[in-house]
């Protein structure tokens, strides 16, 4: 007779010395873990609740300006640095880690309307309503690390005076040209005191300009005649023009899919377009209740941040119709400019109340270094939450955001209005000859025409 029974010696299954780690044995048999789906579901609900508990996105405010913050620029060469310009002509360089001003750039007489840094991070370009473009040397990072007490202020490298007030500036991603928007779109070189060329299409003012991150010669501008115009520096004339029903305040290109850009519109929505196919938006991002003032893509290209006149900052998925996150505080006023930090983990907003505010891009993310076990656990909880996100309980908890009363009311009102519009259109359609009133999708509705 052959007999074998389970026999475990204690030495084999426990640690040898007390400073060893405990030994772990795994058996993945599903029979040992009954009701695993229920357990996973409970974990998903709990992690959704915990995410809500830990959602503290606001890190701090950076105050120092004496007037509303009108524009910001990231320093592509230095993660902690951010430039901001204000309505009283003050430009500051901030250290985001210590939330202090590192350096000031005095000189503008009127409001600073545009700021941008060259791709190598050495030169800062600013422009303003005083009809000047100023080039500044960016202090190197060792200065940034040094004492904050001494009031660093630097002189401009160059001051170029031109004919009209400027509204925006943007630097080429590769090369040393930059474009300003004003009465016309001007292309400048660092070393020339006059624009090397100018573009004009119509008589209206261009209010924002953005270079394409993938193709250095392509740029998009939006103008106050509700148009979005695409330019190519290699051609003598503009390429394309898209006229919408309302003005576009700002444009941002998707850095990972450089043919796509998103326009922040006056009608509370953002519209993602493919620049090759402008007759229809790829996606309409709704949720704001007032004009969207500024937009900036995350370096990952998966999401973007918008700042709005309704005093909130929202984060959208690049292909999602509604916002993933809304940030607001009692003291934050109209938001004029927003930026995603270069590591995609922070969001900076500049608003009417003279402050820059620093937010986490993921509201409940734990800052600092994570231990591997912590990271694994969080990845697991994320996966479980993703798996059960469609269940009502999880969905409700994940979706819920507390809104300030005015925004909540405005959103309800907007919903009522759109619903009424929809009903009216439906009835109109029902009472007219079949086929005479085709339904137009929202992606096309706000577009008037596309001009080649």
């Amino acid at each position: 007779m052959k007999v074998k029974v389970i026999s475990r010696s204690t030495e084999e299954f426990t640690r040898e010395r007390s400073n060893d780690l405990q030994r772990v044995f795994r058996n993945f048999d599903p029979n040992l873990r009954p009701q695993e789906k229920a357990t996973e579901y409970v974990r998903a609900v709990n992690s959704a609740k915990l995410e809500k508990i830990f959602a503290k996105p606001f890190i701090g405010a950076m105050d120092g300006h004496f007037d509303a913050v009108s524009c910001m620029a990231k320093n592509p060469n230095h993660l902690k640095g951010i430039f901001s310009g204000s309505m009283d002509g003050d430009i500051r360089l901030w250290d985001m880690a210590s939330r202090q001003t590192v350096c000031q750039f005095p000189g503008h007489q009127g409001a600073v309307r545009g700021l941008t840094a060259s791709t190598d991070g050495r030169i800062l370009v600013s422009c303003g309503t005083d009809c000047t473009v100023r080039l500044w040397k960016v202090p190197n990072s060792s200065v940034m690390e040094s004492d904050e007490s001494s009031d660093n202020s630097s002189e401009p490298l160059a001051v170029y005076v031109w004919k009209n007030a400027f509204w925006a500036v943007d630097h080429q991603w590769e090369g040393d040209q930059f474009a300003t928007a004003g009465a016309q779109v001007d292309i400048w070189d660092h070393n020339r005191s006059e624009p090397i060329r100018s573009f004009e299409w119509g008589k209206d003012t261009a209010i924002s300009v953005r270079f394409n991150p993938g193709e250095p010669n392509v740029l998009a501008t939006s103008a106050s005649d509700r148009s979005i115009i695409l330019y190519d520096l290699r051609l003598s004339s503009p390429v394309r023009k898209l006229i919408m029903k309302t003005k576009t305040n700002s444009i941002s290109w998707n850095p990972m899919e450089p043919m796509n850009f998103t326009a922040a519109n006056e009608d509370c929505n953002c519209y993602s377009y493919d620049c090759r196919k402008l007759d229809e938006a790829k996606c309409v991002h709704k949720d704001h209740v007032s004009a969207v003032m500024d937009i900036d893509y995350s370096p990952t290209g998966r999401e973007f941040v918008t700042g709005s006149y309704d005093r909130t900052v929202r984060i959208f998925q690049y292909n999602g119709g509604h916002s993933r996150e809304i940030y607001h505080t009692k003291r934050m006023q109209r938001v004029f400019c927003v930026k995603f930090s270069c590591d995609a983990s922070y969001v900076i907003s500049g608003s009417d109340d003279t402050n820059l505010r620093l937010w986490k891009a993921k509201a409940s993310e734990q800052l600092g270094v994570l231990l591997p076990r912590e990271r694994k656990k969080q990845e697991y909880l994320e996966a479980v939450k993703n798996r059960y996100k469609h269940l009502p309980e999880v969905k409700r908890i994940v979706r819920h955001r507390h809104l300030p009363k005015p925004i909540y009311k405005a959103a309800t009102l907007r919903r009522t209005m759109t619903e009424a519009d929809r009903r009216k259109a439906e009835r109109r359609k029902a009472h007219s000859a079949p086929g005479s009133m085709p339904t137009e999708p929202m992606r096309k509705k706000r577009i008037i025409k596309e001009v080649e």
Partner: protein
Amino acid sequence: MGTEQEDSKSEKVVSSADKDITDELDLIAKKYLRGDGANLEVLKDKKLRGQLAVREELYSKSAKAAAKAEKWLNPCGEGYLEAEGLEKPWRAKQPSIVHEVDILSSRKAFDIVLPELGPYTVDYTSSGRYMAVAGRKGHLAIMDMKSMDLVKELQVRETVRDVVFLHNELYFAAAQKKYPYIYNREGTELHCLKEHGAVQKLQFLKNHFLLATVNKFGQLHYQDITMGDMVANLRTGLGRCDVMQVNPFNAVVGLGHTCGKVTMWKPTSAVPLVKMLCHHGPISAMAYHPGGNLMATAGLDRKIKLWDLRKFEVLHTYSCHAKTLQFSQKGLLAIGNGSLVQIWKDSSGDQNYSRYMSHSMAKGYQVGKVMFQPYEDVLGLGHSMGMSCILVPGSGEPNFDSWVANPFETSKQRREKEVHSLLDKLPPETIMLDPTKIGTMRPARKKEQPSKQEMEAEMEAAIAAAKSAPFKKKTKGRNKPSRREKKKQEGVVKAKRPFLDQQMKEEEHISKKKQRISEEVQLPKALQRFARKKVV
């Protein structure tokens, strides 16, 4: 030439061995796939299909990884008892088995004779490390089965009917004369659960932290032991009941009644989920297979029945008495009756259990409770003269998972695990017959009716089939073209009829509806009650 041939041969051998291994791994991986994948062909949404395809691939990958881990990384092998020559395994006596195994295992078989305070009942913790023993006359004890130490012993001076461990060895509940009590390991009485009444049987649902009890009057109580609130108080209405067992697969409580019925309960419904007549006569014992789809019941009608819990059908019926039943982790069935304990095994894989081992106690002992020790090849017996443990090779799961139940748990690990299991405590609503339904879609309730075009297409197909039906060659004028044509026409009419009937029915239905609506519309509300009732 010769060497080349040899080379190719050896390659073939290697490849066939590889193939065997992959086949074996596929067989193991089936268990980890947890059922078939979704049928993606029928999905119309391309994006969803793509996402799900990626997901399915991930599942198969993880199943393969788990299968590999099971094949190569498990430290222990299963126990077995194999007869050689003319020997029969059920003839093997315990002393001979104990003689064959190593010293460590041979210590696990023992008898404790306590004639005064019996009959005894036993319970194990989920890791199998500790055993609780309760004598009818008030003797309670906890033993450490690894070191064979007595942890605590106490005398409550009251009838004790049942004992059960709570989530770990620190707490246990005992059903005493009037009420159940909760004790800690030191023997301090922590709670007296007066609401439960004179409890007959106790069970603990360890994922839900619920203590389920059934009392003399057939009332089933569920109490949450973390918050202390009574989750449910259900009246079975079937009288006194002393057979109770929790299905480990879905945490549904099964009760066996004196009328021969087995009822299954969840705390959130006042009526049983299932009520099945299992035996003609009182139920004496029941047990659930750890897989959850097999139930064994025994009745006083001298039958043991195995039930398929997916179809609620009898799989096999055996003629045999049983006072107590229990399935082991590996699916062996222990049957206790009088002084004889039999162990049955499903050797063929089709749930046809046949005898595997047997063990007879000294004459006059009455086995009251059999319970397999988890993660060990040991069967614990509580009987009228004390309790004993016997070796049953191949009964326990050889490989434990440290995160599920660890027999070598330290107190620090136990504390950690308590916190984690409390965080994952399941709400009572998650108890249902099919726990895999959580997070899945409810199937569409309405059957989609075929559209008009589909109906027409179907009718045309039927007509075409009738037209092209072959004819037999007939004789004597029956094969005339006119006759054949007539026959064909008849066939077409016959094929058409069911469709036309259905169409008519539908039209009638619609017109009736319209009529009803128009009638209601025509008359003002006050006069509607004078409308002529339709004569059917």
